[in-house]
């Protein structure tokens, strides 16, 4: 499997492609560096099971550790609430993404637009189109996908990664978050 090729073979982008996150701690650094990150969590976050926990459990840890506001898409808010974590907001994936293209948007807390959007758990092809929208129409936003599939339209993406390495990567990120 070509690791820095689009996970869905045909979803080839254009000339500008995501930089590959070669090591997970690099992602952590970028998150740490962001002034106003936001974390957008899609419906697959409960479908993906690492054995010990689910993707959403890692994400909650990550959000807490990094103090990153979460937007739950689809019906995910329920899954967060079940885990005693209240996302900062919930709305359709395309709605939050549309807002991220608006320089005037004040964010979930009214304090202003975000500078980094982390995506995880959307269906691959939907995340692909959404990240495409952001790449083209949110020039000041950086995007990182925390999924285990190469998302060419993100600013930064992991390559296609086995599920178990994915869990490792998430752990590394969580460990390296915060504490500047």
């Amino acid at each position: 499997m070509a690791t820095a090729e689009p996970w869905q073979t045909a979803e080839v982008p254009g000339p500008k492609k995501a930089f590959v996150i070669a090591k997970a701690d690099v992602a952590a650094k970028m998150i740490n560096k962001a002034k106003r990150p936001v974390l957008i969590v899609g419906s697959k976050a409960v479908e993906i099971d690492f054995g010990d926990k689910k993707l959403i459990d890692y994400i909650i840890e990550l959000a807490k550790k990094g103090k990153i506001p979460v937007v739950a898409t689809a019906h995910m808010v329920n899954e967060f609430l079940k885990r005693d974590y209240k996302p900062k907001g919930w709305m359709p994936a395309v709605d939050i993404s549309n807002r991220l293209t608006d320089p005037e948007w004040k964010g979930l807390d009214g304090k202003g637009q975000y500078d980094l959007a982390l995506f995880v758990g959307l269906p691959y092809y939907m995340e692909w189109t959404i990240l495409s929208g952001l790449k083209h129409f949110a020039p000041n936003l950086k995007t990182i996908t925390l999924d285990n599939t190469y998302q060419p339209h993100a600013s930064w993406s992991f390559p296609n990664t086995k599920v178990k390495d994915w869990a490792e990567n998430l752990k590394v990120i969580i460990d390296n978050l915060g504490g500047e």
Partner: protein
Amino acid sequence: MNRKNVRVKIDELKTDVGLFKNLELSIGKVTEEKWAEPMGPTPFPSVTALRNWDMKLLQRYKPFYMPFCDLCCLCTYGKCDLTGNKRGACGIDMAGQQSRIVLLACCIGAATHIGHARHLVEYLIEKYGRNYPLDVGGLNIQVEAPVTRLVCGVKPETLGDLEEVLDYTETQVTHLLSATHTGQEGNNLDFESKAFHAGMVDQVGMEVADIAQIAAYNLPKADPEAPLVDLGCGTINVEKPVILCIGHNVVPSVGIIDYLKANGLDSEIEVCGLCCSAHDATRYYKRAKIVGPISWQLRFIRSGFPDVVVLDEQCIRIDTYDEAQKVKAPVIAASEKNCVGLPNRTNDPPDEIVKDLVSGKTPGVLILDPEKVGEVATKVAVQIAPLRKKFKTLPEIDEIIQKSKGCRQCDDCRRACPQDLHIPEAIKAASQGDLTKLADLYELCIGCGRCEEACPIDLMIHSFIVKAGEKQLKQETYKIRCGRGAIQDVEIRNVGSPIVFGEIPGVVAVVGCANYPKGGEEVAEICKEFANRRFIVVTSGCAAMSAAMTKDDEGKTPYELYTGEFTAGGIVNVGSCVSNAHIAGAAIKIANIFAKRNLRANYEEIADYIHTRVGAVGLAWGAYSQKAASIAAGFWRLGVPVIVGPHGSKYRRMLLGRADKEEDWYVLDARTGEKVYVGPAPEHLFYAAETKEEAMVMIAKLCMRPNDTTKGRAIKLTHYIDLHKRLFGTMPEDIHLFVRTVADIPVTMKDEIIKILEKKKWKETVIPDPTLLPRLVRKRKE
């Protein structure tokens, strides 16, 4: 009497334009003006006639572009890189490019329906004459063609009257398509407005097609009790010769059915169909059977069931001919749109063609004469059935296990699968003798075959899945109420008030194709949920089929359980894709019949009415095609929100409202001219939902309209909150945007909601007589 293209010979004719002698007149149209309604402002609207209205909608629902490609490759200046704010060699930018593709898709979609309508009307005129009356519902239908009346300002009464309507639509499609040429339109909002225009003329085209066939073929005429017919592979008696019709044009199917009947073969032979031809065949002939939606094409053919495959037009897999050959079933192509490269045998004697097909001398033919198709298909079916013995290409279980052992676990199949299905895992399990994982994929698989194309060792993965799911396939025995056609005027009268005032919480149109993210069951579930909530659920196309494909504990399918009447709690199958026009028609008729707004060429006012008052939402959960795009566009221009499934994000853009921008949600109060904040109702005009849960909550929400009475709003809020709580586990956070006065608050939740309103610093507003059109304000404010 309206007639088109009459030829009369006149010796001498004295008129105010001069004296004609020895003339042969070819009379384009003889009109007896019977329609008393005065002509509205926009008869046969040009491309820009409704641009102002479009811009109003587009200001509120701004496009969010999600480019499906960073490049443009439309001309030989290209390819051009349009990344970010880069412009191509023609100067276009990314927003322009994406909206251009939207317009192009809508043009293709509209052209498809209109071209279909044109062939149909031409054929039916030839057969039944120009004066054949357009009876689509007898006395129950006074407004027989609401879309056409609204858009064109004419009132078609006969088949012949439809021609000028089609002329108009073709002119518009041509103009619109031309705007996609390099170096024409470039402004994204103008492209969007043009896409709306395409959607509007598409609706006209669909209406023309359906009323023509309803009238001429005597399909159910707005009949809430249209017969229940069979759906599903299991309903087809494969002991008999089976003729399979695929596509969207019922004419060849009618040719077959008529031939069967005329020759007393109707109980000897099974006629079944896939996609909309199946819908329409059952509307014509109760004994016709529906195999299923588009995604059943490969599985049904590979199962070897059909003895002859008749292809008409639209939604037909391109490889059907090859697949049919593999199961030794001859193919008859029956449309100019889809000639399949086959020899044109239209003018040959039927028996010669039959001989060649049965002998295998030629595995397929093109026959552009539907009656001949009927004869040939039937004879071939009868003769070939005993020869081919339902020869199939599905593998045996052993073979699956054996072949699966070769799997390299390379993931290529999964990476090719639009659904990202876990195929390699299932193949691995299969190689170990466990086919359950493959069987689990049966429901999720849309039957596209891309996995097989990708597999380096050529495993027939889809066939594996179908074989593993064969039990399911064979148990598919459902009932569907065949397409009823239009909605009766009296039904509109009955529900008009409760809909407009909000007491019927909404009309949900569940339509379109089968590109579902997680199988068709979700569609059935959504339909039942909203019917149970006493919404009016309307279905059509493949979605109407999926809605049927579920059973309750007693084995009853939704169409058996719910009424087919257009009323609260109904599940109403209007029919094939072109029947979608009746859904728009119903909304239009509410404005016309119930609210007595002028209909004739009065598009803007009616759309404004629908947008602000009629709580209708379209759901195209599996939309995949250009037709789906243009159908959606037709609803957008009427101000009706459309939800698509996650694959719909590939349609290049959403039309999203911004609930957080107060300034976007003002309407005029037609009584006072005052600008009134009415909240984000409806919040979005086009959007792709990620999961069915999200879609369901959004359906409830998008049904709210500024015009809702307090009682109506309270009911709508109840459903919204209830679904939100159940599916999202919590109260919605935006209730304050939808509560206008305390009376809006559902009584059962009063305290809870009041608390939220206080927290949100909610203030009471008035409920206006809402409009977006300044000219509709009766008393202008100083």
